């Protein structure tokens, strides 16, 4: 019997005779195993255990991904901050233009600049924040009543947001707002589906 266990491939359970040990004996499952050495002190082959995927442990009753309610506040905060940033930059530009045209200097110019920045920044932030509150509220309500969380919720929530936001501006403008919401949410869902098909991972619904 050879003592060199590292070089001997895994064989069946029958005892190898001296004649069979001299020539190599390969089984059909050898190609799926790795060529790492096997410890002679183990009474089982550890290579059988290396084929499992990592498993995650979830608390009982918990979802396996974040729902819409957990993501709603982050979405609203992100929209408000982005809107404030964009509005603030536009306010800086408008403030500089107006104060240069009126040839204002010193404290008056500083006050006018601050007024333009804060008015336009808060206006844009409130608009984007209100839109995101409507979108998140529609999404959470759809998730609650349908019991599902998928791309259909995203499209319906986007369309409902556009309809609701322009609901008091006449029927044509209301339909136009709904169409814009439908278009933006559909493009976003197509982007998610394309990412899902390319990376072959589980989708992350927003």
């Amino acid at each position, binding site marked *: 019997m050879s003592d060199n266990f590292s070089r001997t491939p895994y064989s069946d359970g029958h005892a190898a005779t001296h004649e069979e040990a001299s020539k190599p004996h390969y089984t059909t499952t050898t190609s799926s195993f790795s060529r790492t050495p096997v410890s002679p002190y183990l009474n089982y082959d550890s290579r059988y255990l290396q084929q499992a995927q990592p498993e995650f442990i979830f*608390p009982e*009753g*918990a*979802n396996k991904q974040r*729902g*819409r*309610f*957990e993501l*709603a*506040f*982050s*979405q*609203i*905060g*992100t*929209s*408000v*901050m982005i809107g404030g940033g964009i509005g603030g930059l536009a306010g800086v530009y408008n403030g500089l233009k107006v104060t240069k045209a009126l040839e204002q200097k010193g404290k008056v110019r500083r006050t006018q600049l*601050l007024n333009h920045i804060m008015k336009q920044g*808060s206006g844009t*932030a*409130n*608009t984007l*924040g*209100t839109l*995101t*509150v409507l979108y*998140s*509220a529609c999404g*959470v309500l759809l*998730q609650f009543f349908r019991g599902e969380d998928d791309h259909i919720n995203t499209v319906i929530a986007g369309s409902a947001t556009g309809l609701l936001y322009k609901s*008091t501006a006449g029927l044509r403008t209301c339909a136009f707002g709904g169409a814009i919401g439908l278009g933006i949410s559909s493009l976003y869902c197509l982007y998610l589906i394309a990412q899902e098909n390319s990376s072959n991972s589980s989708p992350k619904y927003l």
Partner: protein
Amino acid sequence: MAEYGREPCPFRIVEDCGGAFAMGALGGGAFQAIKGFRNAPSGLGYRLSGGLAAVRARSGLVGGNFAVWGATFSAIDCSLVYFRKKEDPWNAIISGATTGGILAARTGLTSMLSSALVGGALLALIEGVGIVVSHYSADSYRQVSPVERQQRYKQELLRQQKGVSPLAATYGEIDSSAL
């Protein structure tokens, strides 16, 4: 959705801003609906359209004010957590006072100080209520030593024995002079 936890500290600023905006927009929308309903001319159609117009006009502004407050408060709170390396009620109180002071900065020093006092007092009340609630609910989380648990078990066993056997009470009532 059943289990909601807060984000770690840099992302908490964005999430608190969003939560504050949602609270201000929806809650403020409800209040503005009531105020617009009451302030409208007589007639159900006029009142409903008045409420809707008030919500459209002012709920975004209320939400924006709440969002600014929430974002500033959370940013200062995260800064205090970073510098003090502690998380305790003093962080919230200092953050509330500083937020009140900062957001009133354009209206003068006296207004800054009074807003800072109001913010600090408000957060002190909130943290005080939290401390009282946790104090009263802490007894159910207290660990019990094995000796105390055994004593409680014996007391419960004796109580059950007294309840099960009514003959003991009967024996206690027997008077020797009546025999």
